[in-house]
């Protein structure tokens, strides 16, 4: 039909639910970046000397690096001297010791986001760490987890309480000078989560971290480290939101995962940073380095991500399959509406024998959204009988958006088997009409079709969050058809 795309264009009018600002006393570092600021952050956190040295080394590397511009995203130059690298809620006495000491405003913020931090109210079986701007404000269920030897705390606390573990693993998967944004993060990272699962332990509950950027003009640089010892299992989920602000805010996180022999890490993300308004004003620039090392035999790392937020997304959660028979998985749904741009995908690096990887990527573009899947599969010489399956589907809503697929393949062992499938489809006027004829509103119809498209990925999420993610997809497309 000739007029088919007009109504679709109009649906793309969205309300961002998490866009409120919390009025709270904050302590800031002055804007700008230099060695003093790096030292200031380190001192604020009472860090050991080796860590300061490590940060400074990263900073000096970073100075020599240039911002990568190969991704298919365009954005104005970032002035790194105009950003605050540290902001923290000013609490009476350093960090709160228990939830009772947490500022009620902060607790209220998380309640508003639907993440009650009071343990009794929390979904049974989910432990939460909440990171507000640069610091972790609360970690729940710690005592219960400690009973089985699981360490789940903020990164800053881990530096104090388990320095030997942090020292051993920090930078072991994403080296200091890996890339521009990870080097920046290494210099100025503020907080994040630390998880350690001892040998043979199956973590008894879902672990999750909620990241919230609140302060204006502030960058958020979290650092997350998860170590799963031999034969252990953990499922971890992170969620992210930010207030609606007119200026862009920088978010550059680093996540490192290490899975030892027979260990499994399931890492899920529901990313809903503020995407900017309809015209592309404001929004988070999300430059994230996530990498997992399947160190031991038969280890397994799964990344599942639902990316609905951010003005710019630059993110490639990857797996290094070092252990023989290890498995890497990447399940992704990324949605770009309005002027959002996402360049996302994964890298699977096969080193060990019989290593297997699966990539399922679902890109949804609406409005003027631009979506690029960038994926690399590398089979190294020693990776005898390695296998990869890649499926990469794009869904277009309207005719002003774009979807692009950039697969890289590098095979150095002829016994490997690779399969690649890709499809691009458009939400059809016929599908919408069919749904509406049965009584669904146009928005519900779009949400239904999109969720159907993303189902293969959504079903990988922990149950508690699948419903949330499903709703988020619907909300993010509100106004996508009219």
């Amino acid at each position: 039909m000739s007029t088919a795309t007009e109504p679709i264009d109009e649906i793309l009018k969205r309300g961002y639910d998490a866009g409120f600002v919390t009025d709270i006393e904050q302590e800031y570092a002055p804007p700008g970046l230099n060695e003093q600021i790096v030292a200031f952050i380190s001192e604020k956190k009472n860090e050991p000397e080796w860590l300061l040295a490590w940060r400074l080394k990263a900073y000096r590397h970073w100075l020599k690096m240039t911002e990568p511009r190969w991704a298919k995203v365009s954005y104005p130059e970032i002035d790194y001297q105009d950003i605050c690298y540290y902001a923290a809620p000013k609490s009476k006495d350093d960090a709160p010791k228990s939830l009772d000491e947490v500022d009620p405003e902060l607790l209220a913020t998380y309640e508003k986001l639907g993440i009650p931090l009071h343990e009794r109210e929390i979904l049974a079986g989910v432990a939460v760490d909440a990171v507000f701007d640069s610091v972790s404000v609360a970690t729940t269920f710690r005592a219960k987890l400690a009973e089985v030897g699981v360490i789940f705390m903020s990164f800053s606390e881990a530096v104090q309480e388990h320095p030997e573990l942090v020292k051993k693993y920090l930078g072991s998967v994403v080296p200091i000078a890996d890339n521009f944004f990870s080097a920046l993060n290494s210099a100025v990272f503020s907080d994040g989560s630390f998880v350690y699962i001892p040998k043979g332990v199956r973590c008894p509950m879902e672990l999750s971290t909620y990241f919230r950027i609140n302060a204006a003009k502030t960058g958020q640089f979290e650092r997350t480290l998860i170590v799963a010892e031999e034969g252990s299992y953990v499922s971890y989920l992170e969620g992210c939101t930010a207030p609606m602000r007119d200026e862009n805010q920088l978010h550059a996180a680093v996540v490192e995962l290490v899975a030892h022999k027979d260990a499994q890490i399931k890492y899920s993300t529901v990313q809903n940073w503020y995407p900017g308004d309809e015209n592309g004003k404001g929004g988070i620039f999300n430059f994230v380095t996530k990498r997992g090392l399947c160190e031991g035999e038969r280890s397994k790392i799964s990344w599942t991500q639902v990316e609905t937020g951010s003005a710019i997304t630059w993110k490639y959660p990857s797996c290094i399959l070092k252990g023989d028979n290890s498995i890497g998985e990447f399940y992704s749904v990324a949605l770009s509406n309005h002027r959002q741009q996402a360049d996302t995908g994964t890298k699977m690096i096969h080193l060990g024998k019989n290593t297997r990887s699966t990539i399922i990527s679902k890109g949804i573009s609406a409005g003027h959204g631009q979506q690029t899947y960038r994926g690399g599969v590398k089979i190294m010489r020693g990776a005898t009988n390695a296998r990869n399956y890649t499926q990469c589907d794009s869904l277009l809503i309207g005719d002003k958006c774009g979807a692009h697929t950039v697969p890289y393949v590098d095979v150095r062992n002829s016994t490997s088997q690779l399969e690649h499938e890709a499809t691009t489809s458009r939400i059809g006027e016929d599908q919408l009409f069919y749904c509406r004829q049965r009584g669904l509103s146009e928005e519900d119809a779009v949400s239904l079709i999109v969720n159907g498209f993303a189902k293969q990925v959504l079903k990988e999420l922990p149950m508690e969050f699948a419903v949330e993610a499903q709703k988020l997809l619907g909300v993010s497309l509100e106004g996508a058809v009219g």
Partner: protein
Amino acid sequence: MLKIENLHVEVEGSPILKGIDLEIQAGEVHAIMGPNGSGKSTLAYVLAGREGYEVTKGRVTYKGQDLLEMSPEARAAEGVFLGFQYPVAIPGVSNVYFLKAALNALRKHRGEDPLDAIDFMKLSKEKAALVQLSDELTKRSVNEGFSGGEKKRNEIYQMAMLEPSLAVLDETDSGLDIDALKVIADGLNTLRSPERAMLVITHYQRLLDYIVPDVVHVLIDGQIVRTGDKDLAKRLEAEGYAEVRNAMQP
């Protein structure tokens, strides 16, 4: 229940329907027959509110309301159902999930509480049995990988679930094997009621042997050229459209 007056419709600038008059009362079954491309599906789509069909003249009144003013979902909520000639697939959305969303949207419009999962499944089982749609098909993604006949069965299953007041069935019989035709016709006869009207678009007398229509219309080149009783369909089957067309020549 439905009154179409002098309806003219254009698609991409070319006139397809050229002055249709048609009135259907509650409880009646009307059949529309006509050669390929004569405008039958166009009429069905216009009644359901599909975009891209421009009404250039005429009116359609449904239950006393101006039907053409209403959105497709509002029409559905008011009880208009279209059984599609070519039902589309919605990958990843299970048939029952889809129908539950649809049914609850309709119930909401009628001020009723949504059906819970248990009541819904009970209803679904009952209605699927009506057209012998297998459990497996009710759970599969909407129309995905369905055979032609299975899609048609699925349309009638959906109709049975949604209980419309006006069902427009566009070639629900094409693609069906003889047994399936009988099953669907039986299902439709069960759904026949004094409150419900049906507009059945078909090419074949066979269906009308089972679902005996009250009125038969012949649509040729965007106009209803003949209206009669069930015998008109029989005559068409025997003589073809040429006779009717010739009879029309002045």
